[in-house]
């Protein structure tokens, strides 16, 4: 879709209340919010719980359908639905990752992944739902295999980052794992053959035009040949790879810096996401959400609409 000439507007639909502390993350449930299926959203919080919200087909408003509690005993930092939507993984500062199953509207914790030495910061499922990745302040990235009967086995513990790892994200189509860190780098991990031998195939750091401070998040475009990252260095960076080379089995097709967006946020950019229809959204500590689209030139990104959301009447 070509949004280059479109005018955008960002309008708040609803404010969901219920959490008693900061909301750190959220995830839309796959295959909901379209084709007559009401949208479902999971949110996780410093109040140690996860809430699941569902949109009413009648009124359009979201209601809380479930509160997942009494499992984590510290902040729940990140949550992610499996591609089938049957499972929800929740990563916590309590050093564990819990796996929940939706059994007719009730969520039960069916497994707890232990191993990280301290706070787990992010969890991600691969495209087929056969693998799970987690990362944390202990500087490591863990890969887990999903086995029958709700079993999860650790397949690999990846060392390489020299600091706290903030987020992990699987590539949308291939089993290649990306991680970003307080060490200012993005690392790319791939399997050598099929024998659980995972290693770092590339590091995107300052010398490849990478970030100069903590990288907080990354996200892929729909085709998986481009990636966007955001940082405490106040920039958003676009990266690209040769998708044909990647698909032909060359998992080592290198990622290259394409473009840097700077001057749009004046405080840490914590969050960035590339929507399925090509809009990049960023969220930062300057209280602004910005949206970006590509212009015809492919490499030049222009701001289409920025929305400053000011929390009035906060008290």
């Amino acid at each position, binding site marked *: 879709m070509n949004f280059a000439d479109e005018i955008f507007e960002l309008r708040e639909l609803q404010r969901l209340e219920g959490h008693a502390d*900061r909301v750190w993350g959220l995830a839309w449930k796959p295959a909901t919010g379209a084709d007559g299926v009401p949208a479902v959203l999971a949110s996780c919080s*410093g109040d140690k719980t996860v809430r699941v919200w569902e949109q009413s087909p009648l009124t359009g408003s979201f209601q809380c359908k479930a509160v997942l509690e009494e499992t984590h005993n*510290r*902040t729940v*930092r990140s949550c992610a639905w499996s591609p089938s939507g049957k499972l929800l993984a929740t990563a916590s*500062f309590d050093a564990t990752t819990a796996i929940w199953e939706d059994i007719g509207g009730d969520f039960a914790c069916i497994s707890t992944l232990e191993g990280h030495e*301290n*706070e787990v*910061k992010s969890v991600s499922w691969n495209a087929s739902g056969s693998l799970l990745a987690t990362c944390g*302040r202990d500087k490591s990235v863990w890969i887990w295999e999903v086995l029958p009967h709700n079993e999860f086995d650790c397949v690999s513990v990846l060392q390489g980052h020299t600091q*706290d790892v*903030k987020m992990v994200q699987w590539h949308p189509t291939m089993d290649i794992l990306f991680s970003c860190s*307080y060490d200012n780098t993005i690392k790319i991990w791939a399997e050598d053959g099929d024998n659980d031998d995972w290693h770092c195939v590339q590091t995107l750091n300052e010398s490849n035009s990478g970030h100069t*401070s*903590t990288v907080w998040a990354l996200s892929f475009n729909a085709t998986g040949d481009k990636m966007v990252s955001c940082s*405490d260095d106040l920039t958003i960076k676009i990266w690209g790879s040769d998708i044909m080379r990647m698909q032909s089995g060359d998992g080592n097709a290198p990622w290259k810096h394409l473009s840097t967006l700077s001057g749009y946020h004046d*405080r*840490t950019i914590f969050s960035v996401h590339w929507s399925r229809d090509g809009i990049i959204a960023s969220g930062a*500590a*300057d*209280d602004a959400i910005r949206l970006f689209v590509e212009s015809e030139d492919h490499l030049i990104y222009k701001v289409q609409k920025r929305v400053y959301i*000011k*929390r009035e009447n*906060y008290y």
Partner: protein
Amino acid sequence: MTLGLINANPVVHAKKERVARNDDSHAEDAVDPLEIYDYVRDIRDPEHPYSLEQLSVLSEESITVDEKLGRILITFTPTIQHCSMATVIGLCLREKLKDCFPPHFKVDIKVAPGSHANEESVNKQLNDKERVAAALENPNLRQLVDECLYSSEL
């Protein structure tokens, strides 16, 4: 774990005379650096039974406010270059001030330039909100912070 104090002989200064401040600010949302200083000057040092003010870790000049941008900068001076309590002091400041301002004010906490051997690393930790949140959930750190914040009220 270090046995004994890191800085066994800190220099202690007299408490500065307090001026009674009246409550009428020219605008409801105005943030007065001296008011902020009043909140933090009596925080107890993690290692010594003195306040941050008495040890000259903080002074009135430590606080700068940019009303227009909504930014507050607090600069503190650890008593020695290799002070391992610098991050704890920073956490105490954050925790003490967390509900003090209108939410659009952003607070940055840094060590005074040149005052610490790991200045960049300490500053980075103190201004990473996830690291700060996780640290304050750690029971040992939490207890230490609470002692620094509340012992002055005893």
